[in-house]
């Protein structure tokens, strides 16, 4: 009796979340794929063919013949989409490098801090993550505007005499991404630096390494796992980012998340936005698999 209950319990623990994710996470991708092969129609839902599960097998076969790769051909023909993909990857890449450059010294300083204040520092890094993403992006508009607080400050200390145009340029997007994703970079780097055996650095110094080369040859390689995890946590979502380019970027800024949003909400073209999403997923699938492997490995080490 107890054994049966035990088996049922363990089954349920696995099956309930498994079924939920299959239904709400995996199956939707197949639907997106299917609709990306459909045609736009003035109807609700605005695409054709619409499958009728009760139409029988012959009905499904009939409609399957209406599928086409037209939307994908359309994406390759219109240079706008290609440019949007490329510039999303470039913007996300530059932002990831900038985030790393700012986050690493912070994480390093935290790992070197006295043990007693480390939990407080950690808390302070996590805290902004709890406040709204939208609010944090919004806060930068008032700072970066031509008549905004940054320009007022720089002009009052006579660094510049003309306001800098930052808002609605790519620089505003970089700042927005670096700011919003900074905690995601600091945390994994900090945790790999904190676990590090510091006698190794001391040994390198004793053996005549300069502090600089000790850092590059010992400390940095040992923190690489954290750096890789942090970069993926920033890069992947940044490629598909919508809110930041929409609020901080200019009208000529091309990012694929924004393109998809406009295609969907303004043009109401569901098949094309599905095709845009499929290609975006294709671009991100390699970094996502990489991230999952790194994550699974980290769990294995924790065991």
């Amino acid at each position, binding site marked *: 009796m107890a054994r049966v209950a*035990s088996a049922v319990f363990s089954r349920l623990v696995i099956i309930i979340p498994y079924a939920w994710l299959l239904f709400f996470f995996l199956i939707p991708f197949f*639907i*997106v794929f299917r609709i990306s092969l459909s045609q736009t129609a003035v109807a609700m839902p605005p695409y054709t063919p619409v499958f009728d599960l009760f139409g029988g097998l012959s009905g499904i076969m009939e409609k399957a013949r209406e599928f086409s790769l037209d939307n994908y051909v359309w994406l390759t023909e219109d240079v706008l989409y290609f440019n949007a993909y490329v510039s999303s990857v470039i913007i996300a890449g530059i932002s990831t490098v900038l985030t790393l450059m700012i986050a690493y010294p*912070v994480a390093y300083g935290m790992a070197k801090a006295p043990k007693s204040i480390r939990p407080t520092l950690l808390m302070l890094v996590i805290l902004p993550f*709890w406040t709204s993403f939208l609010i944090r992006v919004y*806060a930068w508009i*008032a700072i970066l505007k031509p*008549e905004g607080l940054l320009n007022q400050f720089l002009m009052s200390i006579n660094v510049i005499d003309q306001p800098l145009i930052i808002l609605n340029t790519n620089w505003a997007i970089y700042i927005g991404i670096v700011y919003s994703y900074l905690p995601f970079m600091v945390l994994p780097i900090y945790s790999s630096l904190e676990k590090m055996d510091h006698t190794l650095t001391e040994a390198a110094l004793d053996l005549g390494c300069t502090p600089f080369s000790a850092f590059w040859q010992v400390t940095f390689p040992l923190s690489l796992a954290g750096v890789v995890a942090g970069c993926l946590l920033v890069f992947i979502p940044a490629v598909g980012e919508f809110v930041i380019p929409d609020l901080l970027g200019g009208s000529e800024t091309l990012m694929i998340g924004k393109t998809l949003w406009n295609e*969907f909400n303004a043009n109401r073209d569901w098949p094309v936005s599905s095709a845009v999403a499929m290609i975006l997923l294709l671009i991100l699938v390699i970094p996502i698999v990489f991230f999952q492997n790194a994550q699974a490995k980290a769990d294995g080490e924790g065991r």
Partner: protein
Amino acid sequence: MGNWSRFNIASIVLGFGFLYLPIVLLVIFSFNESKLVTVWAGFSTKWYTQLWHNQALLDAAWVTIRVALISATCATVLGTLAALALVRYTRFRGRMLFSGMVYAPLVMPEVITGLSLLLLFVAIGLDRGFWTITLAHITFTMCFVAVVVQSRLLSFDQSIEEAALDLGATPVRTFFAITLPVIAPAVFSGWVLAFTLSLDDLVISSFTTGPGATTLPMKIYSQVRLGVTPEINAICTILIGIVAIGVIVASVVTKQREAQREKDERAAFAQ
């Protein structure tokens, strides 16, 4: 542990300044007398009074809070189960796929998650509105809960559980009497995380919503597009205040529990 050099202190101070300054400025300018958010014209709380009379905004806030309460609670149950499945059952068919489905939503761009969920809801003929937003939020927040709970489970001494099972407790009873109390702080912080993620979400809600269900971030977003006003700063300040209080309460509760547990353990050893 090495020396905490001036460079280290400077990088921490600058880094934290960068993280907090925009939020501090936003809060300060919510009390601005002037309609401009960039020129200080004196202290005033008039924007807060104005909020109180903005019925559309209050309705949106109420929708958001209900969505967040329901979705965080369901996501906590599902996420805790997912964490248990990942940590306790290292071998079952399709485990690779399962762990992939738990980790992928953490980094998946929101536009993709939002679009795919919307197309699912349309395909199964679900009326879009309050409940579709809630289902969407459960799906993406449960993965964050799973990761938080999982890290606690990994450092959990499983022999206590085995002892309970050996002494004849059923697995269900063991879970509620032993496992759950130990992982409770992580489950609780998972709930708080899911709640704030749901409270915060704009993109996924916008895709999965229907007529009549407008959440606060959607309302804020449409106002921001019209221009920056102290009124939006005031809403944001209230939200930041709620989250800050929540996080502080959560961390105090967690600390007290941990301290209590350590005390109990020491008392148990002393006997």
